[in-house]
């Protein structure tokens, strides 16, 4: 099994979720994240004082998949999340030793 983690622009989430559902992914976890890569932060002005905000709000999307699906899932996310502009995010894949479903106690692929 693999864990696919994608950092995406918040407003791309809807497209990515729809694309993953269409592909057959049953579930995912999304959390708010902030960070920067090539897209740096922005500046804000309060009462004339300028503040630089280095970290940009992003979403972290995590999907557990079977080994065979990993490459395709990355492609699906890539297509759906891509705007072509700086700050589109990153996707990476890591191997997962085991997965357990809390409700039933199932392990491995059955728990996906």
């Amino acid at each position, binding site marked *: 099994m693999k864990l696919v983690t994608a950092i995406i622009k918040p407003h791309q989430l809807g497209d990515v979720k729809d694309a993953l559902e269409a592909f057959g992914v049953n579930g995912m976890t999304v959390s708010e994240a902030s960070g920067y890569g090539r897209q740096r932060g922005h500046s804000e002005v309060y*009462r004339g004082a300028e503040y630089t*905000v280095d970290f940009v709000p992003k979403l972290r999307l995590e999907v557990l998949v079977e080994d065979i699906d990993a490459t395709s899932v990355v492609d699906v996310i890539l297509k759906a999340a891509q705007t072509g502009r700086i700050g589109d995010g990153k996707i990476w894949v890591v191997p997962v030793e085991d997965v357990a479903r809390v409700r039933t106690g199932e392990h491995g692929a059955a728990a996906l």
Partner: protein
Amino acid sequence: MTTLVTATGEPKIDYAATAYMIICASLVLLMTVPGLALFYGGLNRVKTVLNMMMMSFGAFGLVGIIYVIYGYSMSFGPNDIGGIFANPFDKLGLHDTSHIVNIFHFNGYGGIPELVFVGFQLTFAAITVALISGAIADRVKFSTWMVFSGLWVTLSYFTIAHMVWGGGLLSANANGLSAKIFGAANGVAKVVPIDFAGGTVVHINAGMAALVLVLVIGKRVGFGKVAMRPHNVPVVMLGAGLLWFGWFGFNAGSELAPDTTAALVWINTTVATCAAMLGWLVVEKLRDGHATSVGAASGIVAGLVAITPACGALSPIGSIVLGAVAGGLSAMAVGLKFRFGYDDSLDVVGVHLVSGLWGTIGAGLLATSTGLFYGKGGKQLVIQVVIALSSVIISGVVTLVLGLALKKTMGWRISRDDELVGIDQTEHAESGYDLAEREGRLGAASLGLHAGAMRHEEITDAYETNGASA
């Protein structure tokens, strides 16, 4: 108009004015709790919002009580002492207040119960103290703030309120400064100082106290380096809106009757505030490139401050001019703290002192019947400068003495570590928001354990026992 009197010659109660004043007093209360508390709270960082709001709530609680005990008597009591304050014992605890008073002896009105006037003035004293708190955000002990509130309201607020409104040195009294400078006729100064609703008493007084206190107390950890930006701008705008709404009670209520002057005051208060908001935004757009929400909220407050002393004396057009200048001036003044390195955290100096001074002095220029711009000579302007500077000096000296005395005794600052963690947690043991649910467990105190029994296992056991039955 004829004076309403009863057969015995006692002034008759004016029910319209009484109802009006009870509503106005309640509106001024709304300005502080929650208006000012929200305005200041939103401007603070997320870890200090509650302390900021508590400084307003706490000050209101204490000043409300002090006002009833001796504050009213000290401000408006019948026996003036040296033009500085009135005997605080005459109406101690509000004994001996009248059923009906005609405070300023206006023609054409009956009276209102003296207690209504007390209530109205009580809310003024409270907000004046609360205004100061914005300058010293995030870093002072709540206990020291409360002690300061009680002492400051006594020595700086009650005295200036008496001097300006209670017939003291800065009033039109024949023994006042104005009468000494330009003479008096029939026991009233020829040039009547203009402070309709509290430019000197409230805003210059609080703004000057803020400036002195930040110099005594010092900067926040990281001031000028770390981003200390507002954590909740919609709350700032909500607070500014409530301040504006409540301010109608403050200004129009200061007429003490719902009459033609009150109507003028309402209009003047509105247009000056509109103009100040736009004035602030224009300065921002030209200087920073963006018209901001916090700028709009701040401009509103600057305009309200400036029109406060002048609202009964100006025309609506004059009020627009006064307000626009106030918004522009304060927008430029808030940057001074970075240039001079004083941490007036929420710009009480830039907004209240600067616009308070401008409004008070501007009344000498723009007053329709006595102002310089209306060709009425410069005497009013001179008197306006005199009362403004008097307030600066009195507030400055009183605050310096109190600030230093408390620094030497109780101490003002929380520890550097506590400041970094956030004063909400360290002073109040609370956090403002629980957006991402973090359940946690009940502490030992809530489970009936004594403080020494804080061992993890014991807490766990107690939690399981109590939690199961809950």
